[in-house]
């Protein structure tokens, strides 16, 4: 299990590789109280001027959360941020990755900072972000 002591700046977290299905996107949107048409079907999304069904931005955040907490289950995710640069669509191979960019400890606790990227299989960065993990 990862501990603060062994983490080093530059460490790459094990990436998450997946391809979302239309059903997964729909299921997440429903579970996350986001019933907007653009998340439900190609037709509804196209009616809004989109190329087809898209995944909610929150889904990318949830995937980042999963990546981080799987790597450091003993740590607490204390901050998460993301910029949604491009549409995340079902059927497109995705790679969620993270790298440790900073670690610092003080009287307030021990923290690890990470950069986050969700990219398509072709290497386009769809979502970028950062996270702070607190090792209490």
């Amino acid at each position, binding site marked *: 299990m990862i501990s603060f002591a062994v983490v080093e700046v530059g460490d790459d977290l094990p990436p998450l590789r*997946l391809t979302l299905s239309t059903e*997964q996107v729909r*299921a*997440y949107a*429903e*579970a*996350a*109280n*986001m019933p907007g048409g653009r998340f439900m079907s190609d037709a509804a999304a196209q009616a*809004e*001027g989109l190329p087809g069904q898209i995944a*909610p*931005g*929150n*889904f990318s*955040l*949830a*995937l980042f*959360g*999963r990546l981080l*907490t*799987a790597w450091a*289950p003993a740590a*607490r*995710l*204390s*901050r*998460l*941020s*993301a*910029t*949604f640069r491009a549409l995340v669509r079902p059927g497109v191979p995705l790679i969620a990755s993270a790298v440790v960019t900073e670690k610092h400890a003080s009287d307030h606790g021990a923290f690890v900072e990470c950069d986050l990227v969700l990219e398509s299989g072709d290497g386009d960065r769809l979502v970028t*972000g950062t996270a702070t993990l607190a090792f209490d």
Partner: protein
Amino acid sequence: MSVPVDRSVVGQEFDRTTFPPVTADDILAYAAAYGETDAGWSRPGPDLTAPPTFSFSLRGSHFMPKNLPTHLGRHAFDAGKDIEIGVAVRPGDVLTAVSTVHDIYEKTGRTGAMTFVVFRTAVTNERDETVAVIDQKMMFR
């Protein structure tokens, strides 16, 4: 035609919602929806807590203020979020979310000129502990 950004709504509270108590089923359904496998978040039991992104799924009575400036454009897209995550959410917690307009600004990007409105939602539990502070950037064009 250039329209000055109308910042008169910045600081305005537009939603305050107290939700029904969180249930174990809510938590499990949310975790399953994105493939969460951590036992603490995905299996029923007395130690079940919600994953840290659970609070993003709260939807108040008003997603946006009713009186947003009319020149913003017809389409709105989630452009990103900045979240400070506080205490864990447990079954039975009663959460309250208060949303305000935090900022408005313009920029240009691949899809042209855009106005960004930042909505800040502060989520607390019944013990008045901070569950999350969520800054959501909505892009209008």
